[in-house]
């Protein structure tokens, strides 16, 4: 029964819940922000995450991972989302490790995945080149030059790009923007000559970077997956990323809803608890339905990954579209129902609002996924 967690999964959830709520509460993100942390995440927290086995959760045991699979990482992301925990988990353990697992050669896997599981290697996936996600529109080029490739172009909004040791870069080895064929992916050390990384400080205090590639020469062995043929694997990994992101968003939504509900039960105005006002009650009830529905689409999408169902793209787009809209609704309602105090930095709801907006934009917003859902439906 896909919608009911197994005993093992329940234990994982409880462990993750305890860890994030106790060790990485929202104050952790506030501290990173107020201290103007260079990393944008807490290396001690990352060490603990690695020790809990979350960094290797997708990686098989024989390569040093814990092999809990997509449902496992989804559960962890949901709990991380509840406290806005900042860590390289998403960029490294999901997108990065996912891409190596999907497209890497045996030696690449053996070489890199144990390092990822051990928390020693940070990765970032460099896809987008414009303001909106659209992986088919990759224009950056990788040109053959003897036994090497030369990369030229610019990547935008690379999550955790400024702290990654290695970048996984999607570039065009043939074809033109819009073609699926002709896209290849490469492993590029962040300190390779010609790579300029600019950290972009985002509204959600999380990490992203713009990265310019100026005649970056990399060896042929840096190719990850088939020449010209990386798109199918890339899309699978992006779908996993979208689903895990949806799980993280779900955690955020749940926190905001719970917090707002508590506030409705406490705050008094006009000599009454504001939660007695029917208009607010109905809006809270509608949000409740929305949260329930979000839980269903996220669980279903995680199951689709777990069971390698053939409707993964559809389930992923459903989840990402729904969560993008729901988190907009619920974080906005959260601020509004908190009234003036909701507008202040002193309470957390604004931080969730900001994070939700960035999440909504990552790997395709509701517009993108609605259209993709229709395309997948053949209309």
């Amino acid at each position, binding site marked *: 029964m896909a919608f*009911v967690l197994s005993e093992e999964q329940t234990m994982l959830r409880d462990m993750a819940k305890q860890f994030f709520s106790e060790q990485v509460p929202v104050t952790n993100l506030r501290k990173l922000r107020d201290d103007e942390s260079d990393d944008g995440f807490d290396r001690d927290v990352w060490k603990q995450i690695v020790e809990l086995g979350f960094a290797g959760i997708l990686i098989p045991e024989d390569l040093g991972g814990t092999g809990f699979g997509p449902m496992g990482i989804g559960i962890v992301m949901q709990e991380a989302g509840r406290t806005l925990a900042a860590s390289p988990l998403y960029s490294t353990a999901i997108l990065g490790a996912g891409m190596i697992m999907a497209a890497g050669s045996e030696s690449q896997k053996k070489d890199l995945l144990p390092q990822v599981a051990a928390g020693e290697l940070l990765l970032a996936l460099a896809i987008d080149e414009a303001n909106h996600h659209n992986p088919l529109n990759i224009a950056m080029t990788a040109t053959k030059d003897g036994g090497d490739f030369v990369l030229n172009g610019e990547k935008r909004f690379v999550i955790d790009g400024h702290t990654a040791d290695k970048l996984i870069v999607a570039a065009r080895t043939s074809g033109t923007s819009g073609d699926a064929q002709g896209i290849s992916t490469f492993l590029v050390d962040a300190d390779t000559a010609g790579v300029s990384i600019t950290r972009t400080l985002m509204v959600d205090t999380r990490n992203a970077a713009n990265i310019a590639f100026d005649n970056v020469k990399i060896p042929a062995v840096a190719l990850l997956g088939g020449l010209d043929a990386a798109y199918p694997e890339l899309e699978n990994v992006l779908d996993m990323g979208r689903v895990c992101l949806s799980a993280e968003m779900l955690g955020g939504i749940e926190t905001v809803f719970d917090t707002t509900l508590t506030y409705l039960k406490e705050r008094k105005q006009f000599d009454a608890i504001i939660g007695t006002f029917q208009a607010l009650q109905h809006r809270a009830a509608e949000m409740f339905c929305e949260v329930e529905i979000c839980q269903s689409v996220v669980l279903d999408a995680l199951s689709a990954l777990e069971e390698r169902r053939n409707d993964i793209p559809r389930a992923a787009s459903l989840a990402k579209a729904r969560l993008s809209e729901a988190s907009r609704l619920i974080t906005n309602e959260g601020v509004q129902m908190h009234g003036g105090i909701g507008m202040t930095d002193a309470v957390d709801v604004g931080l969730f609002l900001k994070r939700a907006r960035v999440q909504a934009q990552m790997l395709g917003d509701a517009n993108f996924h609605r259209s993709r859902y*229709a395309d997948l439906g053949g209309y």
Partner: protein
Amino acid sequence: MSDLETFRAETRAWLDKNCPDSIRTPMPEREMPWGGRNAKYPNPDTKIWMDNMASRGWTAPTWPAEYGGGGLSKEENKVLQEELARIKARPALTSFGLWMLGPALLEFASEEQKKKYIGEIVRGEIRWCQGYSEPGAGSDLAGLQTKAEDKGDHYLVNGQKVWTSYADQCDWIFCLVRTDNSVKHDGISFLLIDMDDPGVEARPIKLISGSSPFCETFLTDVKVPKENLVGELNKGWTIAKRLLEHERSMISGMGMGAGAASMGGMEAVAKENFGTDGERIADPSIRSAIADHKMDQQAFGLTMKRASEQAKAGQGMGAAASMFKYYGTEVNKRRFELLLDVMGTQALGWEGEGFDSKELAVTRSWLRSKGNSIEGGTSEVQLNVIAKRVLGLPTA
């Protein structure tokens, strides 16, 4: 052979012999097997099939055999349903007695009452309707005023019920009546009334969709024997609540989309009306709206499935019935609004030339759908229930 396999083999053989061929075809509305004293059978096989099934108690397969039910175990019933589905057999009996009253009687009625009424229901002899709402008691059902006065050996009933389904074609009515004026919920009793009794009159209500599935039912000095009281005096609200939950979950299923299916899928209609751009519907707003709706529907379906799996695992979702009633009916209403947008003027016919029967059915179903968020507890009532019972928001 296991017992179940034996049962399956026997059932298949019996059905083979006892299910008429004409019953293995899609059922037109006029051949619905409602049963009852005044039942008409445009297709005589309907009656034969009903009687055959009733003879084994299989119109109510899991009800106790001692009262006339089939006495089947859950597993046996599953086999029976599979075998019925295999031969595409129509239901043998569609009836509010089966869906609503019977389960309540089995839970709350006296031994004598079960003996008398359950068998009649199983055999389709009596067609029942439900007398709950009143003109002044809709959302606030417990505000009902139909009065039953204790006259020694009988109750004298006076009042007016409304939204009684097909009351003009029914034989008996199960009613909520007020037996104590001094309290609200605890002054209500559950009474069974023979509609042939003097003083009972049912008048059909014409709906905006043009059909009249409901009646106003007037009760004027109706004498009801005391043995027709089900459960304890003034404890009828308990029975009512049980039945209402049941009704809500029946109605919420509407979100899952029969109506539009008759048009062969909204996407197909949209492609026909607006043309295509590659595989895509050429009108992008319509395409977007359809995608939004289908996502909504899929998400709702997944939530229903999750609730059912969690219920099986003993993890209740809490007031799930209210959520499904609310969301399902709102989705259903939106589906018809969208379908009308897609179909344009062809979904705006009433009757006569210029429209085919499927198109006309869409128009009527669109109008009928407006009632989904009203009947069985309005959307507003469901939101109240969620706010108070699930979210624990306080009352002023």
